[in-house]
């Protein structure tokens, strides 16, 4: 057993956990850990320009890879700057460990310089957090932090490191295994419940698979596809579930909910059986809860019991990892041996109805030859990238157009802030994803508002030589809010119009990147081609129809069948 200082323990633990890269920003209270990292030299550090950028980058890295994202920041303002990023990760169940410096233990509570109670501040938006008061506890805490972040329903964990603890010495024995008596997530689903679920599926004439982020998190896409194809059920995905089932698959109805497809929402409204997999019945999905899927029985597979029966009554709860649950369901179905043709035939009338909905109102927009339609940009982007890129988005209309018009066939290829809806997420997340996959094409689809919230990370991307491509859909509006004002506030555009927007091409150049602009539909394809072919960091700006809306739209609080259409 070796004696190590706290700061050495941190670096040692990072190595044992297989951490290859961390995102951070230094300061007095964390300078010792930085010094140790520097001397050690084996872990890559990405110096961001704002701590929020570090958290989103770590989050993007985590979502793209499934590994734990790691951040390192100083006390006080460094720590508070991480809060938005931590809450973003918390809402979308992203595994992350954030280390914050803290004033020495003797000064805690004294309003010391750059002291803030970050453990108190982040208690409601972390899965768990720690203030390390004794260096002897540090090895255990480090192990627990990573274990808690990635196990069960993943989430962010914060570890607050007082400066004196970083420099004190203790025996370092890193626990190989860990067992916490008060934390034992249920992974293996109950066999009886699986049987019961199968019986219910067998009986259903109008089922729907409602697929959420849990499928992506658990890597259950293969099992899901197998089950879907076997039972011939239609599949609707949440924003977070996109890519969990191939968007180009004939059984895919695309996204459901507020800006989901007409067919997905109608199918949900008329189903007799919802098979919910890793989805949490969010209000963007259910709309007015009393009117949601009134005829449906519900099977709900989720690893977190709190997600089950939180918003809707569930007939068959299945707590556990959905990859295992789906595998077991497929096994039961195979054992029962109902032939594929029988499933097909049983659901033929249901599919006929669904196809009619799809034909009645497919996703659509009015093409215009004089002004660029944002949906057209996304369609072209999809064509040119053959659907193979990792796409991050900002928040707002740009995000919804991406969700609607880019078809995601693979999990972990759409990285977007769903639960918190954090503007400024997309670009730093793209940086994290690009660090994880240097050879993949990583694109941030942005709005002119959101991109300005973390634009400073251009310098980070340049410094790291990251070839991230940014597509800005510029409407000179906080478009999504403007859309609500147009529809529900009699077009009173209170504080949603930008009278000054930077010249994004020049801005790119100022950072040493490349910038391209398209102002006419005829320029869209060339601009995209040029931008995607250009090496290094690129901004492509598209001057889009300023008052274009996102449709379909279920007005907040309305039933999901009350969609406003194009």
């Amino acid at each position: 057993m070796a004696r190590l200082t706290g700061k050495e323990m941190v670096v040692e633990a990072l190595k044992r956990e297989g951490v290859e890269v961390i995102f951070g920003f230094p300061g007095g209270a964390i300078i010792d850990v930085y010094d140790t990292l520097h001397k050690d030299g084996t872990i890559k550090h990405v110096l961001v320009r704002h701590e929020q950028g570090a958290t989103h980058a770590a989050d993007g890295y985590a979502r793209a890879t499934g590994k734990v994202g790691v951040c390192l920041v100083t006390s006080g303002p460094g720590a508070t700057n991480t809060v938005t990023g931590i809450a973003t990760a918390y809402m979308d169940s992203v595994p992350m460990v954030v280390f914050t410096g803290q004033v020495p233990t003797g000064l805690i509570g004294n309003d010391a310089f750059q002291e803030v109670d970050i453990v108190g501040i982040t208690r409601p938006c972390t899965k768990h957090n720690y203030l390390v008061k004794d260096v002897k506890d540090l090895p255990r805490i480090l192990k627990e932090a990573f274990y808690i972040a990635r196990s069960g329903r993943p989430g962010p964990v914060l570890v607050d490191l007082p400066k004196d603890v970083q420099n004190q010495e203790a025996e370092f024995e890193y626990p190989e295994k860990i067992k916490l008596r008060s934390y034992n997530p249920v992974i293996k689903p109950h066999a009886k419940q699986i049987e019961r679920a199968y019986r219910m599926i067998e009986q259903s004439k109008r089922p729907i698979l409602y697929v959420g982020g849990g499928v992506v998190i658990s890597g259950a896409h293969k099992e899901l596809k197998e089950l879907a194809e076997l039972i011939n059920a239609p599949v609707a995905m949440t924003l977070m579930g996109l890519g969990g089932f191939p968007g180009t698959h004939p059984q895919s109805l695309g996204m459901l909910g507020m800006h989901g497809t007409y067919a997905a929402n109608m199918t949900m409204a008329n189903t007799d059986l919802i098979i919910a997999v890793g989805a949490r019945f969010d209000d963007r999905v259910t709309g007015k809860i009393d009117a949601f899927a009134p005829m449906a029985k519900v099977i709900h597979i989720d690893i977190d019991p709190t997600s089950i029966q939180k918003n809707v009554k569930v007939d068959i709860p299945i707590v556990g990892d959905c990859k295992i649950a789906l595998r077991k369901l497929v096994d039961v179905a195979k054992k029962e041996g109902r032939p594929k043709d029988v499933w097909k035939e049983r659901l033929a009338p249901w599919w006929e109805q669904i196809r009619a909905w799809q034909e009645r109102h497919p996703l659509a927009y009015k093409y215009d030859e004089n002004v660029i339609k944002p949906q057209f940009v996304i369609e072209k982007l999809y064509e040119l990238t053959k659907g193979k890129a990792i796409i991050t988005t900002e928040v707002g209309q740009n995000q919804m157009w991406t969700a609607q018009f880019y078809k995601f066939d693979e999990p972990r290829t759409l990285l977007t802030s769903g639960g918190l809806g954090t503007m400024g997420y997309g670009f730093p997340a793209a940086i994290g994803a690009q660090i994880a996959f240097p050879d993949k094409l990583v694109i941030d689809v942005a709005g002119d508002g959101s991109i300005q919230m973390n634009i400073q990370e251009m310098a980070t991307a340049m410094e790291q030589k990251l070839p991230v491509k940014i597509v800005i859909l510029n409407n000179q509006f906080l478009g999504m809010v403007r859309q609500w004002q147009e529809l529900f506030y009699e077009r009173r555009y209170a504080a949603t119009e930008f009278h000054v927007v930077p010249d994004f091409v020049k801005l790119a150049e100022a950072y040493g990147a490349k910038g391209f602009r398209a102002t006419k539909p005829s320029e869209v394809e060339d601009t995209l081609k040029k931008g995607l072919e250009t090496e290094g960091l690129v901004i492509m700006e598209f001057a889009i129809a300023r008052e274009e809306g996102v449709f379909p739209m279920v007005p907040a609080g309305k039933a999901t069948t009350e969609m406003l259409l194009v």
Partner: protein
Amino acid sequence: MKHTLSVLVENNPGALSRIAGLFSGRGFNIESLCVAPTLDPSLSHLTLVTTGDDFIIEQIIKQLNRLIDVYKVVDVSEGEFVEREMALIKVKAEDETRAEVLRMCDIFRCKVVDVSPKTYTIEVTGPESKLKAVIELLRPIGIKEIARTGTIAMVREKKTL
């Protein structure tokens, strides 16, 4: 509906504030909360009285279990259970009421734990309903101060937490 939850939680700093934060953050009610050490120094025992329909109580229990520091949650009020609360009540007790206060103490089996020329301080223990009755009866005489412990509870018979 009123529910009494018995919660065993790791004796970590911040554990209590996680629980309090959970209730305020999610808009759940806390009617009373009582925390004390257990025989195992690494665990604290928390008795929590809350209200809500079955749906909400289910969420409360699940959300409590989700906290990493929470070891065990039992809805004591689901079956047979005993619950007790203690109150210290300082009542005005001047010439004409001194005897009446004592009589009341006798009926409710309260103890007088402090005496001054103008007051009695009495200790009353029992289920919440008993405390309520005593307080209502003493109120007209003049209550100067009350301190209450909050409810503690235990499942009857063999079932142990």
